[in-house]
């Protein structure tokens, strides 16, 4: 495969993922209201109407940004998307209740993906690669910690998964033990992706697991829950972008690479 083809595949993967994130985040805000509404209204003291107007405006803005992301020069659209996603992350941290200190890290792949997209659009591949590595490392590390702390939602995913996929009732104690193992593995791959080597197997696993856990939201509660799944598409797409970027050896780096 030629290097330009891989680059194109990588940038389009990331573009697609960020665009889908925009649509999902917008849909979620319009359907259920987002964390910014809760934060501005209940914590900051805005009127409900003003906070609603801001979220609706942002939802429409995100939906316009989605197609604009396909245009290489429209990087301000990606900057706006990242800005909003970061703002929403801060609001979620402020209003969240279960280990909310982990939220900025857990959502790092989401809000850093558009920044990496800007870097890739400007042919700054090295910074883009590190933004992607840091983003997905944050997401896996914090989700891993949540798993080790036994996030009850994750326990229910495992129990429901057992019923749907294997037709068996998974006991809570078993689900909890499995969750601890998953958490440890998540933390291990989060650290591994930060090693300054192109560990393709690690990126491959993260992409697979990222997509699978995003899809679990639909498996768990049906297709009506699509925004929840799509909002997490970067959890798989960011490591997939890394994998595509790493699919061609760079002359200068190829020498130092360990064979897999």
């Amino acid at each position: 495969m030629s290097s330009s083809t891989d680059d194109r595949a990588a940038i389009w993967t990331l573009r697609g993922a960020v665009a889908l994130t925009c649509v999902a985040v917008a849909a979620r805000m319009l359907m259920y209201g987002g964390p910014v509404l809760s934060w501005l209204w209940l914590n900051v003291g805005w009127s409900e109407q003003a906070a609603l107007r801001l979220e609706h405006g942002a939802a429409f803005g995100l939906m316009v940004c989605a197609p604009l992301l396909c245009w290489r020069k429209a990087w301000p659209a990606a900057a706006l998307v990242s800005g909003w996603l970061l703002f929403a992350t801060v609001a979620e941290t402020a209003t969240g209740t279960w280990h909310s200190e982990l939220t900025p890290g857990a959502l790092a792949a989401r809000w850093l993906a558009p920044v990496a997209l800007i870097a890739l659009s400007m042919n700054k591949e090295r910074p883009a690669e590190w933004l992607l590595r840091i983003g997905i490392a944050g997401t896996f590390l914090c989700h891993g910690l949540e798993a080790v702390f036994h996030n009850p939602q994750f326990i229910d995913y495992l129990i429901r998964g057992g019923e749907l996929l294997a037709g068996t009732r998974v006991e809570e104690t078993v689900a909890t033990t499995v969750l601890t193992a998953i958490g440890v593995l998540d933390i291990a791959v989060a650290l591994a992706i930060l090693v300054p080597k192109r560990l393709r197997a690690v990126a491959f696993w993260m992409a697979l697991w990222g997509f699978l856990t995003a899809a679990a939201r639909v498996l768990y509660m049906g297709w009506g829950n699509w925004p929840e799944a799509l909002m997490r598409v970067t959890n798989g797409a960011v490591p997939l972008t890394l994998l595509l970027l790493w699919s061609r050896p760079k002359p200068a780096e190829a020498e130092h690479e360990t064979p897999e």
Partner: protein
Amino acid sequence: MKRLNSHRAALIVTAIAVSAAVLIGALTAPPGLGAADRNPDGSYVGTRVEGTTPAQWRLIWEEDPAHAATVSWTTAEQPKKSTLVYDSEARQGDVTKYRFHADATVGQYTDDEVRTWYNHAEISGLKASTTYWFVMVSDGAASREFHFVTGPEGDADFKLLYGGDSRSDRDARRTMNRRMRALLEEDPEILALAHGGDYVANGEEMEDWDEWLTDHELTVTADGRMLPVIPGRGNHEAGGPLYDQIFNTPGKKGGNFYRTLIGEQFLLVTLNSNISAGGDQADFLETILKDNSGVRWQCANYHRPAYPAVKSPGSALEHWVPLFEKYNLDVAFESDGHTLKRTCPIRAGKKADDGVVYIGEGGLGVKQRTPKDDRWYFEGGVTASTLHVQKLTVTKSMLTVESITDAGKVYDTFETKPRKR
């Protein structure tokens, strides 16, 4: 130069497109209702927490309200001895005259700044449907005389309050506490309040609980009748040890789910939506509903809704709703949304005459949201953005749930007859 111009053009197009979209979105946002009514009277300061004077009292019901209860209070200093003296006759606060007494367990609330102490006196062996008069005593410092009525035995008629979300708006919380006191004063058949959780904004801060506990004193009637609380745990007090220290660990530690039988024909299952819904808790729910299938009225209380009026559904939808439907639950009480709702009867994700009805969403002291009344399950149901509390009237032939606003107006009435199980 050409490159610069094309970038500038891109910038302008992006800015115009995004700004136009944001403006359209903002202008087409549905109308919100703004802040809820505020109570102008913010003068209540409650009993001062100082020395070992009992303050911040509450009475907790758990599994067997006909025969057992916990009376809890706060002291600023650690008492050497805390005792509850009680009797089935009024003794006008003369602590030497009460026939019974129970020593309280004393411990310090876990907090860096508020260094006060909890006192829990567990009493049991009580007579059903009986008024008990009591005084809290810590190292000689005594409270005034209070009283409460124990739960009934047998097939009895009675009334109960339900409400959730008393966090974040102290004026509104005080208004609703005064409303509950007024309801209790005008209708002595009301026995207790089942709370759906989110008492405070941050359940790991004693400062927040301090205010809630002080405001809770407002639910006591003028003649000293205390309203027992059947507590459910919300997401705002999901973590930390304070919830158990406030309510004497209702249900098991780490679980906080349990069943309450009021009389022999009313079952209330309190669930915890902050822990796994599908694991041990689903097993517990199934066992309780199966074992009590002969009980006429069956209700559940938990925080995060299966059929929300504002937000997205919680795990209850996947793990508890099928059991509610299998065992024909009458009403599921839900909180968290900060709005008033009653759904149509629901079975298998559809409107059905023999379905389960979901009522509540939390209006005991938090700004009320605008409900999303276009959701399918509100066809034939009710939504409103108003502070509220539900009053349940339990008789042999009918279960009635009235939703009462902060102004005391009955906004909605739901009635259901006994169903076959």
